[in-house]
Each structure stands twice: as C-alpha cells, then as structure tokens.
C-alpha cells in the first residue's frame, strides 16, 4: 500500500521542471519585470580608461536634462561614507570612483531619471577629465618593481601583490622530486572567462522613509549574504532590510558578489525617496562583473618510470583585477586550488600561489567552478597527459595506476582533503568502452597515413562540492551551513522554503521530490519558495554546487523532523503506542496489522484538528544543516576529435561523459546540468575567453567579441551513469552542477594534443582556436598565453 515513489514525483523521477511552465510562456518574474509606483531609472557612467587619475567631473549638463532627478558622483558617495565598500575577500572596492579609475568599465557616476532613455542621454553629458596612467594587464607586468601602484588608496600596500599563499609539504615534496626517475613539467594559462548569464545584474531599491524599511529586488544568488553586507555598508539594522531575489536568468557565480550598482541604487532610493531601478546592459555585465580563471600555472610531476606519481609541485600566479573581490571561503586565498589531484593517490604535494592586482575587472572565481576547482582539475589533467606522453605510457593506464582505489576510502589527499567514496576505475572503464578505446590506436595510425589527424583526450577527476563544513568554510566569517523550513498545511499540501537560491538548477522541482521521498507527499503538492530574506530561513545561497549537498540535506532533515511528529500523531490516531508504528512511503501503519494505517495527509489534518493531549498544534519545522564533509562526485570525460590540417579546425567526433554524483534526485535535471556544463567546457576550450589589449581595453565586451557557442558548434554528448552514494549525505547525493564545466575542458585539450603528439607539440593554451592549432601544427611549437589582440602587420 506504500505509494509508488516515481508516480508521486519522488527520488529518481525525471519529473518535468515546474519552473519551465512559466518560463516558456513568458510568465517568469525577473527583476526587470517588476514595476513599482513612482519608480525611477538609473544608468551608470563607466570609465573608458583602464587606469587614469580623475582630474575633474562636471555633471552640470546632466542635471539640466529634463527628467533627471539625481546625479551621483564618487564625491557625493564619499560624503556619506559610501565611496568604498567591502568585498567578499576582505578587500575594498570603489562604488563610484573618487581618486582614480582602475579598470575599463569602472563605475564613475550615476544618473537617476524618469526613464532609462533620459538617464542614458544625461550620462553622455557628464564630462570627466582623465589623466592617463600606465596600464597593467597581466600579473607579470604587475610584479615588476617599476610597475605603477594600482592600489595607492590602501595603507600597507607597497606593491601590486595581493597575497602569497602556500599549502602542502615543501620538504617532503623536494625529496620526492630528488628521488624521481623523471620530472614532467608543464606551463599553462587558464584564460579569463566570463559567466555571462543571459540576464544581466540589476536591482530595484525601494526605501520607505515612513517605515524605515529598505526593500531591494535584485539579482543575487545569495540574498542573505547581501542582507548582511548591506547592513554593514548602509548601516541599517537587519530587520529593516528585505532582499528579494525573484526569478534569475542564470548566475553561474556571476551573481554572488555585491556590485556597485546595487549600492548606488540603494543610496539613490534613500535620497530620492522613490524606488530606483538599475538594469545593467550586456556590455556593463561583461566588462565589470565577476569573471572566472585568469591563472598561470607552473606544474611539475615527480614520476617513477612506470608512471606512478611520486609528488606534485605547483605554482600559480593569478590575476584578480583591480580589487580582490573573489567570492570564496575566507581561509583559502586561491580558492580550493589544493583540491587538485584528489582523485589520485599522491604521497606528497606542495602548492604556492601568488595573486596580483591588475587594471582589469575585479571579482575572480565566478563561473561554475566551486572556488577555482576548475583550474585545479584542468591543470591536473593536463599534467597527467603530459606525463603520460613524456614517459610513453598509455594515457588511460597512467590514470588507472594512480587512482585512489575503491577500497581505500576514506582517503586523505596530499593537501589534506578527505575523499570518502567513489568507483573511479569503473567509470574510466565505461568511458573507454563507449569511445572504442581498444581499437583507437590502430584507427589513429591508419588515419594519419591518409593525412587525417585523430586524437582522444581523457579527463578524470573528483572535486569537492558543497561547502562547508562550518569549521573550515565561511564567507566574511559567516559559516557555510544551509537551511530549510517546511510547513505542512492541514490538507497535507505543503510549502517549503530554503536558504538556497535557484537560478536554473530546478530547486522548485527537485526540493519537492526530496519532500515526496521523505514524507510521501506528492511533489506536485509542495510549493517551493526561495530568495526573500523576510520569509526564507537564513542560508548562504547557491553556488559551488552546494545546493543539494547542503540545502538539499536540510530539506531531507526537516522532512524527517516532520515525519517524527507525524508518527506521534499517527500513534494517537491509531490508538497504539509510537513503538508499534511502522512507516512506508506516505503512510504509518500498525506493525501487527498492515491494513490499519493513516496517511501523512491524515496526520496533517489531525495536527490542526485532533492532537494528542499536550502536543503543540501544527505541522511545521525547520532544519539547519552543517555538512560533516564536502561531497566528492567523480567524472570521466573522453573526447575524440579530428583536426583539419589545412585549416586547424577541429571537430568533436564523439564525446563520452560518465558521471558519478551519487544518488540522483531527478535524472533529467542532472543530465541537463551535465549537458550545460559540457557545453561551457567546450566553449572555453574552443572560443570563449576574455582578453585585454595593452591599453586595458576589454576584448569581449559584447557577444560579437565574446563568443558563446551555439547549438550549431556544440557537439553531441553521450551520458553514462555510475552511482556511489555519498556516505554522509542524508539521501546519498553529491554535487553535480559544476562537474562538467570543471572536468570537461581538459578532455578537449588533451584530445587535440593527442592528435598533434607526433609533431612534438605539448601544449596549446585555451582557447584552441583554429589559427592557433594550425600554427602549432606548422611550427611544431607550443602555443602559450592569450591570443594576440592588436593588429600586427
């Protein structure tokens, strides 16, 4: 008599996404859809210069445009102590520039007017006099002793260096390298990329002088963090601040940081006493908001002849732009870079990292990467491939030999993480079988004789998803747990709220499935709400693939609390003691008589109408979940490519993805996440990058220059599944949102390198655009760094 779990939309059901119904009908509710009475519109004037002293700002002509209500400059912000704001990495960032501009696109002034046309017209009338300063566009320029100091606003900041950071065992690593048969070296650049969600950032600030309450509708992946930050910056008490994130048109990490536009719109509303809407345009989003990567690697592997890895040595140099505004756990200056090589049994490792300011947009880490795990795993898989090629060992065998074995969990990595589960070799075997690896070598050689260049690239990795635990993970001191609150109505329908924030992950769909799994309430009977800090429980938001590992666990835990109370009610209704009650999906019954039972809906009604003596009425509860560990999904991605030797164009002939993210709540949603992530992986490997010319002009400020692949270019992906449940997660799930973006790029690059192996080329930095592949093929030399952006001849 237990319910059929798939029929009620429980665990394992590929339930259609609840969100899509409104999205495909144009009935979503995004920030820009919200219109408040008397609302004004804000436009930001941005700096055309990458590094310049501001000599003067003349806003008089802007004030004269009819319909202009307010013109704000850095000076006016400074008078209210709002010219600077804290970043998520304990740095400061200019809200509106006062002294100088430090990157192209930096916010210089803002106009608030009756409509956005007027605001934009008036912005063009602001006259800013700049005095150009030397521009620094990469960390190597930044580290030169003679380089211009970018952050002259800060005390104790004599150079452009932000941090030196290290982890691991230097001495032990040195010994391992001294004893190695071979040392394989590789230098790489992971280029700067931008998450570029379809919806740009924006806000509507609405300050009500009468009630003293500030409401901000905004594009945030972490509304509660924003509320905490606004309380700090605007000196308003928390209960007088309401942050509402409505539907988000994608985030990918871009909507975690606090941006100047939000703060300016808040002050503008306080000053005008009217709602102020700010909607960033596409160029503004691309040139000024959170980017990803821009890290240079020097990597070395100490190897035994047979391919056994004896030690790892890595040095990274990272470019953080003009302000250190990375969103990441406070302890880790270069994110979770030290999760590198977690899938491999490495005795000893050492990582040193240095970060620099440059005259580029701030806000690193963002872009579907779980705090720089993208770089960590890309570097890892490129180094493993280079080692295999250097030693003449099969690229699958070197991985198999070095994997942490199924029986070795829990496994402490050389950098101190604890991995707890996985079947790495099984995933690899499935992938190799699917791609036809056993016959590929012969196929490759035969093709080469006919002038065709084929290659296979493998990428295998496990990554840490779902920060925290709260001991190690915090942002601005706030511990990284998460929460859920469940209220079951008397009819047995329910509303669930969590501290996470959906931006395309399908929380409305999948959270209801967890409730269905735990309580037997059909998923269709559960409303899911997120994003309003006045109603949602406190949570750290959605990024770093942490929703299912943390908030999803809280949903299971709060459901169990509800079930525990319902059990007491069931005992009362069935007139037996609680110990005699059994649970099956959707129903309690008397152990000795399966026929005698009550449904969860019966219990819900009783919670409001027929309670045991002394029991508190109602059926609702909340749960805060502090995960004991991160979750460790595993992925094996294999690409098969062919290069056209006359043009350097490469095509993906086949792509196989084997993902083990533990128990899948909604397989269709999981597959959607993997498909999307692989598309982004393909994008970065082939075309999607942001670069700057030597004057600091951003090349990639619109979709003609910043290339996102379309359905035409994107290859097909074959998906396979392995399930190793997470041992500590209440429903055995692991994170999945970022696996494919993290693990995918190396598969494409390794495949192209495999096709070029006979030429002696060991590396082409991403993006592997056809001209770069052609040049490598012609010269037999590696292609490093960003593609040139200036005309040469």
């Amino acid at each position, binding site marked *: 008599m237990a319910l059929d779990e798939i029929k009620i939309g429980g665990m394992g059901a590929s339930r259609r996404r609840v969100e899509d119904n409104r999205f495909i009908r144009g009935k979503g509710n995004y920030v820009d859809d919200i219109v408040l009475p008397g609302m004004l519109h804000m436009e930001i004037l941005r700096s055309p210069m990458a590094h310049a002293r501001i000599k003067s700002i003349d806003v008089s002509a802007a004030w004269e445009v009819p319909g202009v209500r307010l013109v704000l400059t850095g000076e006016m912000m400074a008078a209210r102590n709002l010219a600077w704001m804290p970043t998520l990495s304990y740095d400061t960032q200019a809200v509106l520039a006062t002294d100088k501009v430090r990157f192209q696109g930096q916010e210089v002034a803002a106009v608030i007017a009756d409509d*956005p*046309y007027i605001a*934009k*017209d008036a912005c*063009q009338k602001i006259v800013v006099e700049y005095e150009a300063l030397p521009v620094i566009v990469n960390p190597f320029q930044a580290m030169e002793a003679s380089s211009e100091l970018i952050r002259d606003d800060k005390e104790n900041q004599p150079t452009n260096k932000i941090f030196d950071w290290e982890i691991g065992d230097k001495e032990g690593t040195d010994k391992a390298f001294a004893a190695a048969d071979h040392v394989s070296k590789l230098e790489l650049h992971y280029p700067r990329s931008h998450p570029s969600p379809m919806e740009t950032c924006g806000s509507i600030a609405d300050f009500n002088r009468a009630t003293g309450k500030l409401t901000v509708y905004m594009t945030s992946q972490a509304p509660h963090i924003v509320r905490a930050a606004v309380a700090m910056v605007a000196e308003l008490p928390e209960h007088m601040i309401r942050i509402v994130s409505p539907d988000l048109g994608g985030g990918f990490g871009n909507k975690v940081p606090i941006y100047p536009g939000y703060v300016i719109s808040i002050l503008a509303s306080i000053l005008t006493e009217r709602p102020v809407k700010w909607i960033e345009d596409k*160029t503004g989003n691309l040139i000024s908001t959170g980017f990803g990567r821009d890290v240079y690697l020097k990597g070395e592997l100490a190897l035994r002849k047979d391919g056994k890895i004896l030690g790892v040595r890595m040095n990274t140099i990272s470019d953080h732009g003009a302000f250190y505004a990375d969103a990441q756990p406070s302890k880790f200056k270069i994110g979770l870079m030290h999760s590198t090589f977690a899938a491999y049994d490495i005795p000893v490792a050492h990582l040193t990292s240095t970060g620099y300011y440059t005259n580029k947009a701030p806000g690193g880490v963002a872009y579907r990467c779980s705090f720089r795990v993208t770089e960590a795993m890309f570097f890892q898989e490129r180094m493993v491939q280079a080692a295999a090629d250097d030693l003449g060992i099969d690229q699958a065998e070197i991985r198999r030999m070095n994997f942490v074995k199924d029986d070795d969990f829990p496994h402490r990595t050389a950098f101190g993480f604890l991995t707890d589960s996985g079947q790495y070799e099984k995933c690899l075997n499935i992938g190799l079988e699917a791609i036809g690896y056993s016959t590929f070598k012969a196929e490759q050689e035969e093709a080469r004789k006919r002038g065709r260049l084929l290659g296979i690239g493998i990428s295998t990795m496990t990554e840490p998803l779902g920060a925290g635990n709260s001991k190690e993970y915090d942002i601005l001191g706030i511990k990284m747990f998460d929460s859920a609150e469940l209220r079951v109505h008397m009819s047995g329908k329910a509303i669930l709220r969590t501290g996470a924030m959906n931006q395309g992950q399908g929380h409305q769909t999948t959270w209801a499935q967890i409730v269905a799994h735990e309580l037997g309430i059909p998923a269709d009977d559960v409303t899911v709400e997120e994003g309003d800090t006045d109603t949602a429980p406190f949570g750290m938001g959605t990024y770093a693939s942490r929703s299912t590992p943390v908030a999803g666990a809280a949903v299971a835990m709060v459901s169990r609390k509800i079930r525990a109370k319902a059990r007491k009610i069931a005992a009362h209704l069935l007139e037996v003691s609680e110990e005699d009650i059994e649970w099956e999906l959707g129903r309690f019954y008397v152990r000795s008589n399966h026929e005698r039972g009550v449904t969860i809906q019966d219990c819900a009604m009783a919670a409001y109408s027929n309670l045991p003596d002394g029991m508190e009425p109602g059926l609702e509860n909340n749960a805060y979940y502090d995960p004991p560990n991160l979750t460790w999904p595993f992925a094996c991605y294999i690409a098969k490519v062919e290069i056209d030797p*006359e*043009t*350097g*164009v490469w095509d993906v002939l086949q792509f196989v993805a084997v993902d083990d993210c533990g128990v899948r709540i909604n397989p269709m949603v999981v597959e959607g996440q993997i498909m999307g992530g692989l598309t982004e992986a393909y994008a970065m490997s082939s*075309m999607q990058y942001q*670069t700057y010319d030597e004057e600091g002009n951003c*090349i990639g400020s*619109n979709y*003609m220059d910043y*290339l*996102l*692949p*379309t359905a*035409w*270019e994107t290859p097909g992906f074959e998906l396979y599944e392995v399930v190793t449940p997470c041992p500590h997660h209440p429903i055995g799930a692991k994170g999945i949102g970022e696996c494919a973006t993290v693990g995918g790029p190396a598969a494409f690059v390794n495949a192209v390198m495999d096709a070029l192996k006979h030429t002696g080329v060991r590396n082409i930095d991403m993006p592997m*655009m*056809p*001209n770069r592949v*052609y*040049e490598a093929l012609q010269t037999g030399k590696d292609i490093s760094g960003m*593609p*040139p*952006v*200036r*005309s*040469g*001849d």
Partner: protein
Amino acid sequence: MYPSRFGYEAPKSIEEAIGYLTAGAGEAKILAGGQSLVPMLKLRFAAPEMLVDINSIPGLDYINIGADGSIRIGALVRHEDIERSEELKTAQPTLAAAAHLVADPIVRTRGTFVGSVCHADPQGDWAAAMTALGGHIVVQGPKGKREIAMKDFVLGPFQNALAFNEIAIEAVIPAPQGTPVGSYLKLERRVGDFATASVAVALNIQGGNVVRAGIALAGVGGRTIDATEAASVLVGKPLSEDSILAAAEAVAAAAEPRTDHRGSSDYKRQIVKTFVSRILTGIANSEQKVA
C-alpha cells in the same frame, strides 16, 4: 535598448522615401532589415535624426530569374528568402552556397540582401558574392535610376557609393555565358561571427572551358577584395590541378589580411588558398555534370 532619440517615417513608395532622405540632408538612415543598424543604434555608435523604414513599400520583395539566367533581387528580399529559394539553388550556386552561411538563422529571417551589400562591411558575405558574380546595384534618387557596378559600389569599409538621397532598390546578377557554377566557403569562429576569411567563387563554363572566373574575398582586407584578376589564370581552359593551384596561390596573394585575434595574416592567406582550392576542386570533380 535605449538608443538616442530619432524620428521615424514609414513611406509607402520609393519616391516618398527619397523625399524624406532629401529632407534629412544626410541625417536620415534607411531601415530595411535593421540587423546591422539596430545594434549600432543600441550601442549609440549611430545616432541618425531620422529612420526611413522602407518595409511598407510594396513590390520590393521579388527574386526574378530571367529567361537568360539573369537575376534581379529586390531591396526587401530577406537572407532567408535566398536560402529557401529552390530556383536559385540551380540558377545561382554561389548565392545558394553562401545563403546559409550568412550570420545566424535569426538574423537571416529579417536582414535583407541589398541592405547587407549597402552596409559594405569588409567581412560581409553578400558583397563578396556579388563582386565575384560581377553584379551591379540599381539605385534610385530624385533624378531617377542609375546602375553602379559592384566594383564601384563598395568604396571602403562601411562606405558605399550611394548619395545621401538615393536608395538601392535592387541587386542584379548578369546572365551567365554557359553554365554558372561556383560556391562559397567561410571560416568563422562561431555561427554569426564575422568571417576570419571567406571565399566566393563564380565561374561560367562553356564547352568544358572556363569562360568567366569571378572570385572575391571577405574578411581579408579593409574592404571586399575583388580577386577576379588573380582568377584570370583559370579562363580559356578546363579546370586542372595546375590551374587550380595557380589560381589558389594568385588569389591568396591578392588578399590583404591583417593579423588580429582571428589569426595571423599568413594564416588567413592559407585559409583563402585552401578554400579556393577546395571550391575549384569540387567543381572540377563534378564538371561532367555541368559541362
């Protein structure tokens, strides 16, 4: 999008449109498909005082193929109309090959063939195809109509030979001598990207011999490159491995590419050479069908 303020007129005839252009004294712009103009308005790179929307003018959306094989394309023919025309597939293989490579499907539903030629983008596909085909543009102004050959129509990057009060009303491709053959190849980083290099080839073949060879290039110079002179090595004989190689090298030499983030000048020349060779080899291999 928030463009600068502009006036808007939607005339019902070409004469009325010319009247608005004349009154605008150089500050009025024609709006046809708008696929280049509207983004420029959005970015405020263009801020015309008036838009003269010609979409309400009847009778400009024709593709006429004459008995002699000449082709006339009206000013409101969309890229998509070319792409979907069954007649053009056989009558004009160069156009047919280029049609599905123009921009992306969304742009193709709205953007116009003649508008694209007028835009004179050095990376524009249709200007290259029209140049290879030896076509001309019919323009109309206050004093009536005149014809401008493609080689005289594109003056430079984004510059055409229209006076401020003239409208390009149709594109004309002359009748072929013998059988028209040809194709179009384009290297782009992504659908809708501007070309890294494109090659338009339009040959006429009669009695097994090439009697006319038109080749034009996009993306490899400050304007559309007319490589017809370089292609003259093909004329007066059948296509052969030798003549194909000679033409490919001569055309590559006629390109004027610059090194940029799409590739080095040498790389772009290599692409031109490869594409010329691939198109001509493809024609040679199917020549018995067209001879």
